[in-house]
């Protein structure tokens, strides 16, 4: 039934957007992490969205196909006293762009709200349908 597919479509979008919100949170939290788990400076992570049919060619949901690391150059800060500084006295800082991440966060939260609203509408319509003839 087509109205039930709306839940799957909106659900996949909620999943994808919450993952995007998660990566944004990691990026913002680690905006100054000089050393990540691999010993290198933290690199910003970005999600890749792809359209994916959930039920038939008309019901297209969203899927996060991969989480990629940003290719932007690392930020260099002159701090000769820092133990992580190189021979010239520069410290490699994460390539997280805080402004970009804030924009990403707002966009993800708005998209999440939109899809939650879609789910609510579909629920109301299904309830009306169940009440036919009563």
């Amino acid at each position: 039934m087509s109205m039930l597919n709306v839940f799957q479509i909106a659900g996949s979008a909620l999943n994808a957007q919450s993952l995007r919100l998660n990566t944004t949170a990691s990026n913002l939290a680690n905006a100054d992490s000089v050393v990540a788990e691999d010993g290198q400076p933290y690199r910003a992570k970005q999600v890749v969205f792809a359209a994916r049919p959930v039920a038939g060619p008309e019901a297209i949901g969203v899927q996060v196909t991969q989480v990629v690391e940003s290719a932007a150059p690392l930020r260099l800060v002159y701090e000769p006293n820092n133990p992580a500084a190189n021979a010239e006295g520069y410290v490699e800082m994460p390539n997280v762009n805080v402004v970009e991440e804030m924009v990403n966060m707002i966009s993800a939260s708005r998209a999440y709200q939109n899809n939650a609203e879609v789910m609510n509408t579909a629920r109301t319509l299904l309830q009306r349908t169940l009440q036919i003839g009563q």
Partner: protein
Amino acid sequence: MKTQFDKSIQFHQTALNLQAQRQQLLASNIANADTPNYKARDIDFRTALQGALSGARDRMPLATTQPAHLGADPDTLLQQLSGYRTELQSAVDGNTVNMDIERAAFAENALHYEASVTFINGMLRSMNTAITGQ
């Protein structure tokens, strides 16, 4: 034998079905608002309803009697009728979803769906009145 009641309730049933499928298409558009290269789709409700009422059916698949035969994808009625939305403001990532248009269409379609349900309910109630005679 089909009575007038059957005919008119079948009209609303067809409309309800199409509205449910359109709701699914619009939900896909809203879900994929951030997917690169996703193209928004919609159906022209008037043409779709006329097509469905005039008895247009899903296109039949080609019979494959030999293993080497190529089978053509059988298009469903909705696939034949759905088209891509004209772009108003182009995005760099090739996405053509315009959230204002999609939300407006979604709300409008939900209202039409509720109207169809109300019509069916009204017809059933009148029939009930006629049967009980009260």
